[in-house]
Every structure is written in C-alpha cells, then in structure tokens.
C-alpha cells in the first residue's frame, strides 16, 4: 500500500506537483493519466525514492520516505521513462547485476533472472548485448529488471511508448498478469491503454490530482450534465414545443433528419438527472412517435479532456476518430500523437 499526503515538489521554485494526496490499495492496477508535464514522472520518481519531495508525506508499505528509504525501495520495482540499461552488458549479465543490486540471494539469483526473462519473453536474447537489441526488447529488459527481487509494487513509467502494436498488446497482457500478484502503477497519456488495463485511474493536470476512480465510474459520475439524443417522427416545431416545456431540460436542439418527417433532438438536462422518460412521455403526448432514444455517456477521453482543460475544440475534432474503436491497436498508435497535439495546445493556454 502506498499513502501519499499533501505531496509537493518544486523544481527551483516552480511547482511540478502541488498538494497531492491519494492512497494506492494493494493488488490493483493504477493508471496515472495526464498530459505531458502534468507531473506523472515526477510523482513516480518520488515514490521510488529517486527524488525527494519538497514537502508532504510518502509511505511505501508502511515505510516512510526518506527515513526508511532502503526498506521502501526493496518493496518497489521501477521502470523509468527511459529504461536504465547498460548497453555494454548482455541481457543475462544485466539482469544478474540488477538482481544482485536488489539484494537477491546468490542461490535464488539465477532462478529469478530466468523467471523474469521468461515472463517478459526474453529467453532467446539472454546472451545478446543490450546495445544490439531493438527498442521493444530493451523496454522488456527494463520491465524484467523491475520484476527482480519480487517487489510487492511495480511502477512503470509509460511502459508501452515506442512499441509496435503487437508488442503493446503483449506488454498490456503482461501488466494485467502482473496485476494479479502485484500492485501495479503505470503512467500513460494514452487513454485507451489506461481504460483497457487499469482498475483505478488518477487523472492529473498541471501537478494536481483532478479525479480518481475506476474508469467506468469516472465516465459516469463525472458527466455533470446528461445529454439525451432522440429521433422522433414529427415536425420541428412540434417536437421543440413538446420538449422545451419540460422542467428538467436546459437546452434543446432540433435538427432535421435525412428522412422526411423525422427530426433529431438533442436535449441537455439541467440537474444531471436522467430525463429520457420525461422526454419520451412528452413526445408521445404531443403525438410524435419516438423512434430512438439514447443517453450520451461520456467516454474517459471526454472526461480527460474536460478535466485537464485541453480545449473544447480539440475534443470535438478528436472524438469522431478515436471514439469508435478504442481497444484496437490502430487507434493506440494514432492516439499518442493526437493527444500530444492536444496537450501542447492545453499547456499553451
């Protein structure tokens, strides 16, 4: 378990993380989500003891930092943003070195190295120099290194950056597997990844925690207003008149459909309550037949963009491309670039 309370980190007077408090429970996969420069890596570096907090308390599995740093570090396996690899060593040598560094006993070292290599699919490249490995393999060596010493908590900083789609899926599978036996914290600016892998999401913006919760829960509860889309048989005026008079409705838009006699209706509730039943009743009473009626649920992406303030126009342009197939690798490959463009725009504001 990791407890963080009122954590603040300043770089030369400029705050990178401000007054952050959260608790990471055991046995779950946590996702740190945020645009570039939101403080994800800083938080991870503080949790792993690489950096010290300017103020605030961090406790790793009951060991406060930095007082009991060595015990706390022994509970954590960490893959930094750039895997910390010695290029002049072979994978086997490197992993053995990392195991020794983490205090793995001589007798257990070989088994643990082999086990970590097997889990990350590195068995074939064990005798090769890290210098000669591709980016994907290097990333996996970094993950294998984090598994050594059997840490309770595994922290991965952007584990899938720069990997090809097949590798991304493999790494995600590995992370989900790890989540069964370890507490995993990963950071990402790719929404689909977090949505696919994590049990809990922490959304960060400009060094502050703006939301925490399960991905579905976030999408549901964070939509402050609910929007209903409906298609009805009838004229524009008829429909408009019927819906506008409803007490819970804040804003109504009616647009003609492709078919004659049909109109599309978009209504927004003022209180955030479900207004589908009211709309259906009102339309039926006005003599319009309701053909379809759906409540718009916000995707995590909308929540993310809204909370991190990455521009509403950006949200509109992003939606049609990303929304339909978020779990497919194609979209994962597109997502980072688009997100980054969005983030940059957000930071300039």
């Amino acid at each position, binding site marked *: 378990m990791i407890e963080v309370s009122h954590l603040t980190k300043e770089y030369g007077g400029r705050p990178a993380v401000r007054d952050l408090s959260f608790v990471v429970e055991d046995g779950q996969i946590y996702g740190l989500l945020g645009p570039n420069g939101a403080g994800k890596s800083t938080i991870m570096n503080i949790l792993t003891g690489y950096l010290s907090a300017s103020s605030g308390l961090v406790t790793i599995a009951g060991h406060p930092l930095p007082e009991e740093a060595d015990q706390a570090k022994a509970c954590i396996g*960490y893959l930094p943003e750039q895997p*910390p690899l010695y*290029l*002049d060593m072979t994978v086997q040598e490197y992993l053995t070195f990392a195991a020794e560094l983490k205090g793995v006993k001589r007798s257990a070292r070989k088994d643990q190295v082999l086990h970590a290599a097997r889990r990350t699919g590195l068995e074939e490249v064990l005798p090769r120099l890290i210098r000669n490995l591709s980016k994907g393999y290097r990333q996996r060596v970094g993950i294998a290194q984090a598994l050594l010493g059997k840490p309770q908590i595994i922290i991965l900083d952007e584990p899938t950056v720069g990997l090809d789609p097949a590798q991304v899926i493999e790494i995600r599978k590995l992370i989900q597997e790890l989540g069964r036996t370890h507490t995993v914290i990963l950071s990402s600016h790719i929404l689909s990844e977090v949505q696919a892998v994590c049990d809990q999401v922490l959304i960060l913006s400009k060094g502050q925690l703006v939301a925490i919760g399960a991905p579905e829960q976030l999408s549901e509860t964070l939509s402050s207003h609910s929007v209903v889309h409906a298609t009805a048989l009838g004229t524009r005026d008829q429909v408009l008149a019927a819906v506008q008079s409803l007490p819970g409705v804040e804003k109504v838009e009616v647009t003609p459909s492709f078919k004659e006699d049909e109109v599309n209706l978009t209504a927004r509730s003022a209180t955030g309550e479900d207004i589908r039943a009211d709309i259906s009743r009102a339309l039926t009473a006005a003599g319009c037949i309701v053909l379809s009626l759906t409540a718009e649920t916000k995707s995590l992406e909308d929540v993310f963009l809204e909370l991190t303030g990455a521009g509403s126009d950006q949200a509109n342009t992003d939606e049609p491309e990303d929304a339909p197939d978020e779990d497919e690798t194609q979209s994962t490959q597109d997502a980072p670039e688009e997100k980054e463009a969005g983030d940059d725009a957000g930071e300039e504001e």
Partner: protein
Amino acid sequence: MLAIFKREFRGFFHGMMGYLLTAFLAASSGLYFLALNLGYGLTDFSYYTLYRTIFMLLLYVPVLTMRSLAEERRSRTDQLLLTSPVSVWGIVLGKFFSMCAVFSLACLLDLVMILVLWALGATATTLAANLAGLLCYFLLGCAAIAMGEYISGLTENQIIAAVSSFSVLLLAYLMPSLRSMFNAGSAAALAVFTGIAAAAALIAGLRTRSLTLGCGVFTLLCMGLAALFVIQSTWLTEAFSAVLEALCLFTPFEDFVNGSFSIPALVYYLSATGLFLFFCGMSLEKRRWN
C-alpha cells in the same frame, strides 16, 4: 556495493579502457625503471621511477574517473542505482573501490619491478623504503581518484569531467611553485582573501536571491579581513600559506622518496580521499532535493 564494484571493474575490461590505462601507466614507469633503476643501477625506486612519473597520474586519473558517475547520469542508469535498496555510500564506494582496483593493477606491476630490484641485490632496507613509497603512491592515486569521482558526479558530460579533473590535478601539481609566487606579502594574501569573500558573498546572494544579504556578507567579511590585516597581518599570510599548502596534493609524497616514512603524509591522503568521497555522496544526495 559489491554488485556495483564487480560491474564497474568488469566494465573497465569489457572495452579497451582498463587495458589501455594500465598499459599506459606500466609503460611510463617501466621506461624509467629500465633507464634509471636498471640502466644506472639505482635502487631507489620511489624517487627515480614513481616520483619522476607522477605527472602521468595527471592524465591517468581523469581518464579513469571521467565515466564513473557522469556516464550513469547521461544514460539514466543512475535511476536504477538510486532506486535500488543500496545507499548512496554503497554506490560511491563501490565505484571508488573498482577504480582503485584498476589502479592497483598498475601498482602491482610496480611491485614486480621493486621485487626485481630486490632479486638483483637491493638491500632489505631499500626494499622496505621502496614498498613504503609504493604504498604512498597508491594512496596518492586513490585521493586523486576520489577527487575525480566527485567531479564526475557534478556533470553529465565525460569530457567536461575529464578536463575539470585534469585542471584541478594540474593546479595541485603546480601549487608548490604557485605558492612561492604568492608568498610575497600580506597584501597579496589580502587581495586573494577579499576575492574569496566576494565569491562567498556572491554565492550567498544568489542562493537566497537577496541583494542585501549578499552585500551584507561581503561587507562583514571585508571588515573582518581589514581588521585582521591592521592588527595581525602575519596571521593572514600564514593562513593563506597553510591553505595553499593543503592544496599541494603531490607534495606529501616527497616525504617518501628519500627513504623516510611519514605518517602525516598517509593521513593527509586518507583524509583527502575521505573528504572527496563524502562530497561525492553529498552531491548525489543533493541532486535528489534540487
């Protein structure tokens, strides 16, 4: 610590570096040994070989130490070390001992030369004096390595680390001559101390971002110096000379070359080593808090 020591030591011999450096030092002392000790039949190895090739350390040590911490920082592998359950001191000492081990290989070759002299008929007293000289030479090298490691920890760039350590070692090497230049009078000492006071005030002012504090510190220090200059100007010159003497890293070794043994010299090298390793650990620790 042991893991870091082993990795570093192997690292030197994975590439050319370890072999090249050892060969470089062995060649220079071998040449002097051949020409002077063997050629002229002189048995004093400490003076004729070690003392005369000591300037080789000016090149050897910076190249040996430049990688140690700078490269870790550049390739971000320091994240692995600093997030593993090994203390900062374990990292600093592991690296330090590995470099000392590489240096000791060259010293072992020197030991062979000393034993050759003994086999060729040098007396037991000369043997003892030569061994004592070698011990002091090794400790001098270790102090220089600790200094180089500290400088390497300050930068990400190996070249900057190497050039800086070379400059510092060169300054220490030339310090005896520089010292005699500065010994002229207390006015020169006053000027230099004023300069140091100005630097201290500047650092204080920049750290706290307060002009008043910087100026205040400078005024106070200058007043103190001026008072000292008027009342007891000899203190100033003596203090100045003592400070400069402490910076002559290579001078205490001279105590060993005439067949004598000097405990203060050994203590000086051991404390210089300890001091720089302490600085090195502190600078690593400080980076966490920046």
